[in-house]
């Protein structure tokens, strides 16, 4: 049998899962402070004060690691003409009628949109997070700005968490994706089916 294709290097996989783990921690600790119904999540972090102490540090670590990963992935995530076509045919996408879709590169338009959504929401979270970080920074800002940052922080977190829910579901939905990010490999058929242009590129390089 043909050897599988390398889709993600060990470094890419590690940085992805590093960000993923930090995201889980940041999201759980953030949700604990967001809605009373989820305050019990603060027990996972050692109680309310510890949740308050840890959350911003986890967030900054996630932001920095994400920045490194985003730097590496950015070039592959520029939106192209075939991506717009792919998006226009979203009905074919969600009904698994993939044969009718334009062939796409290493990432499809959905993945690219996710990428840029993450960039924006992470940036907003980092900047607003500093403004509302009472222990070190809030004293330097006017209360009006702190209020605005609090609202924006919650909104950006909502966008990020919702996007990641979609991201996780897409990975469960499209079989082979989780393996790609865990072991780094995809089959030839998988690459041809989901990322035709990227597959051509890989084959060209092989010859």
């Amino acid at each position: 049998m043909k050897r599988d294709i390398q889709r993600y290097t060990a470094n890419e996989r590690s940085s992805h899962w590093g960000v993923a783990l930090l995201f889980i921690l940041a999201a759980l600790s953030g949700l604990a402070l967001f809605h009373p119904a989820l305050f019990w999540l603060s027990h996972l972090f050692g109680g309310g004060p510890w949740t308050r102490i840890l959350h911003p540090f986890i967030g900054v670590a996630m932001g920095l690691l994400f920045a490194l990963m985003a730097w590496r992935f950015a070039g592959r995530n520029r939106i192209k003409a075939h991506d717009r076509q792919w998006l226009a045919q979203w009905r074919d996408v969600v009904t698994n009628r993939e044969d009718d879709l334009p062939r796409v590169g290493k990432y499809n338009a959905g993945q690219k949109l996710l990428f840029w959504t993450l960039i924006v929401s992470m940036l907003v979270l980092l900047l607003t997070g500093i403004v509302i970080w009472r222990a070190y920074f809030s004293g330097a800002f006017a209360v009006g700005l702190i209020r605005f940052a609090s609202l924006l922080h919650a909104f950006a977190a909502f966008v990020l968490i919702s996007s990641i829910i979609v991201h996780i579901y897409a990975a469960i939905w499209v079989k082979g994706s989780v393996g790609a990010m865990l072991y780094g490999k995809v089959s030839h058929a998988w690459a041809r089916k989901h990322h035709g242009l990227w597959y051509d590129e890989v084959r060209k390089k092989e010859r």
Partner: protein
Amino acid sequence: MATQDVIARSATTTPSPSVRQQEDVAKLIDTSLCIGCKACQVACMEWNEVRDEIGSTVGVYDNPDDLSADSWTVMRFAEHENAEGDLEWLIRKDGCMHCAEPGCLEACPSPGAIIQYANGIVDFNQDDCIGCGYCITGCPFDVPRISDKDNKAYKCTLCSDRVNVGLEPACVKTCPTGAIVFGSKDAMKEHADGRITDLRSRGFDNAGLYDPDGVGGTHVMYVLHHADKARLYSGLPQNPSISPLVGAWKGLTKPLAMLAMGATALAGFFHYVRVGPNRTEEDADDVEEVLPPVDERDDHHDADRGGQ
């Protein structure tokens, strides 16, 4: 004994034990009678056993120059030149206003860290405080302060411990001019009416009661000689209310965002159930065709960077 007189509790979505009916209390501070002696500040420190660090004078009578976790009330001294060119010394005892609609309580994420009692007192329960400072963000009067010692938020309790046993707050007890009085809110309004009538007869046409509607009224009220210009009193807001930003942050967004995130996850689940997974049929050709192995080391040459 359980507390049975709680109207509101921070970060709590079900009613708190609230069968006990109590009369609204209020502290009335008459700025026209205040001589700025700071006895109230001292009484507050004494009763509550808090001692601020000795600071340094900032060139005005304000001392300390701001509220802190150890100074729950401060006198603010404003020099105002009126239309006749006369100096008016407007002294205001600053501290928690005990709003009927408290911004601190609205903003607090920790269940039970801020409690509003049936008599109107808004109290911080530091046992449950996590030190996030959201109460500062929510407060329209810039009152709560986080302690450097323990990272808990502190402010005037309206001497809830004294009021609970039928005593007046310490500042009221000590005030030598009767500028601070305490009683039922109705009685305090009535008392204020008398004072306002007196002030108006003395030429303060705009004398009035400060009990701002924007926060549902307060349980600390002022008699002001210039009720139309509250800002003169060291920046007392004329029409304070919980900021719409705080309202949006803590109001509608919370349930809506929770609902939307839950719906997103559910949509995924039902998509899986109805449409099903997207599987790849392995092609027989791939099995037969012999290809040179993909060299993993290629990836270290940044093969995946750049355009497509």
